Every structure is written in C-alpha cells, then in structure tokens.
C-alpha cells in the first residue's frame, strides 16, 4: 500500500472502529448482561464489518494505484 494510493486516515478510522468492537466484545466476555450483548450484536459487529470494509477498500485503492487491477 503506497502513501499515494491509501488514505491513511481511513485506515486509522478502521483501527478505531475495530478497537470499539474489541472493547464491546471484551465487556461481553468479562461480564455478560443482556444490554452488553445487544450492544455487541447491533453496534459492535456492524462496526467491525465497517472496519473490515475500510481495510478492503484501502487494499483495493492500493492495488489500483499500483495499476495491478
């Protein structure tokens, strides 16, 4: 991934989203309450999906910048 092809800010956002997902998962595993599990399912997991999509987008942007695809 080259600096020109990949907006670093997007990757930073992906890291933050993954970290929030991680914390919610940690809360579920340390002390499960119905609210914690609901938050994990309906907020945490979509955040992870979003982070993953940002990462995939960054990879694609990089490949495009290198004219591989």
């Amino acid at each position, binding site marked *: *991934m080259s600096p020109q092809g990949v907006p*670093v800010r997007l990757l930073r956002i*992906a890291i933050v989203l993954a970290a929030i997902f991680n914390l919610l998962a940690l809360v*579920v595993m340390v002390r*499960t309450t*119905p*609210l914690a*599990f*609901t938050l994990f399912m309906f907020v945490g997991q979509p955040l992870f999906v979003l982070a993953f999509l940002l990462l995939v987008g960054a990879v694609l942007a990089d490949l495009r910048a290198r004219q591989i695809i």
Partner: protein
Amino acid sequence: MKAVRRAAILVVLLSPVAVWAQVPGGVPLPQGWIGTTSEWVRGFGIVFAVLNLALLAFAWRSLRGGGVTPTARGWLLVSVGLVPLMIAFLSFAHGLEESATVSSCGSCHVMKPFVEDLRNVKSDSLAATHFKNGYIRENQCYTCHSDYGLAGTIKAKFAGLGHVWRYTTGSYELPIKIASPYPNVRCLGCHGASQKFLNSDGHPKEEMQNLMNGTVQCIACHGPAHPEQKKAALR
C-alpha cells in the same frame, strides 16, 4: 519481532483478567480439571480481545510516518481483518449461551422478585419447586419460557431483544405479565411422556386430549408459577 514479543508479554500479563472475570454462582458442577467448553470459549475470547487491542496499538503506531509500510500492512491485516473474526465468533458463542442463564434474566431489576422466588427453597411456587428439586438442570428461566426447536430459540431471542429495548427505554408496564398465555407444550415437552403424568389421577383419560391441545391449561391447576407481584416494591 520486538513488537510481537511485547504483545505476547502484554497478553500474559493481562490474562489474569480471565480469572478475575469468573462469576461465582451456586454449587460448582463437576467439570473436571480441564473445565467446560464454555469456560474455554470465554478464556480464549478474553485473551484474543486483549491481544488484539495490543495489535491495534501497534498498527496505529506503524501508521505514524504517514505512509503504509509492509509492517503496517501486516499489523492491519491481522488486527482489523483476522483476529476480530475470531473474537466475533467467540463473543457471539459466549454471549448467546450466557444470555440464557438465570443470572442474565435476573440482571434486570424488574425480574429480581421472580428470580429471588425461584431460588427460595421455602417457596412453593411452581418455578421454585422445579428449581429446588433440580428438575431443570440449568437455564431454568429460558427452558420454561422458550418453545422447542430452532424456531423456539429464534422466537425467544427476538422476545429477549424486545425485553432489552423496553427495559432500557422504560417502556414497560407494571406489574410484569407474561406476553401470551403459557402454552402447555412447554410443560408437556418434559412431562408429557412421563409415567407419573400419564397415570396421575389428576389427569383422567378424558381430559388428556384437552391437555394436549391446550384447551385446559396445566397452569390452571398447577399454578401459580411465580408469586404475585407487590406493586409497591416494583420500581
């Protein structure tokens, strides 16, 4: 390599969190020295989640220069792509199982009178009788309040979601009432084939059809399942 070593040290240092997280509850079941699958899922989940927080910190640090180096690529792939997949699976498995426990139901204060009665050995309510005699080994609330089969599980989970919503937003009415009449099939799933049920004088043959199709409710004779709620003590 240095960073990996640091992450490993961090995980080892933080792993006692898993021990701290053990929730005490009742008489321990004979689980053997190796523990249960559920405990392993939880333990691995905590270790992976802590490890990934460290990995994310390394990934963030590797982006400092403003460019994406091969090292940063590695950290990102692992910490945003691979390890969270494992965490998602473990948390989902643990959360789903844990959400069926009595302590999970009792974590909402409106449910406390029901759970306290359930655990009260002096209570003669139907729920307490099942609990104190060990008729249902675990997840007693969930077992009696969910239908059988996959559809029953899904229905119960959606109902639980509704409970969380109403509890969190305060959009519920007191006293708490069961949403729909208690179906006999939930009783008969366990009792239906037992000789005690089939040969009981209280269940004459001519009534059996009515019990099976729900025209006569089990709870009408065997209730109340839970004690009546005192309005003053509810909120």
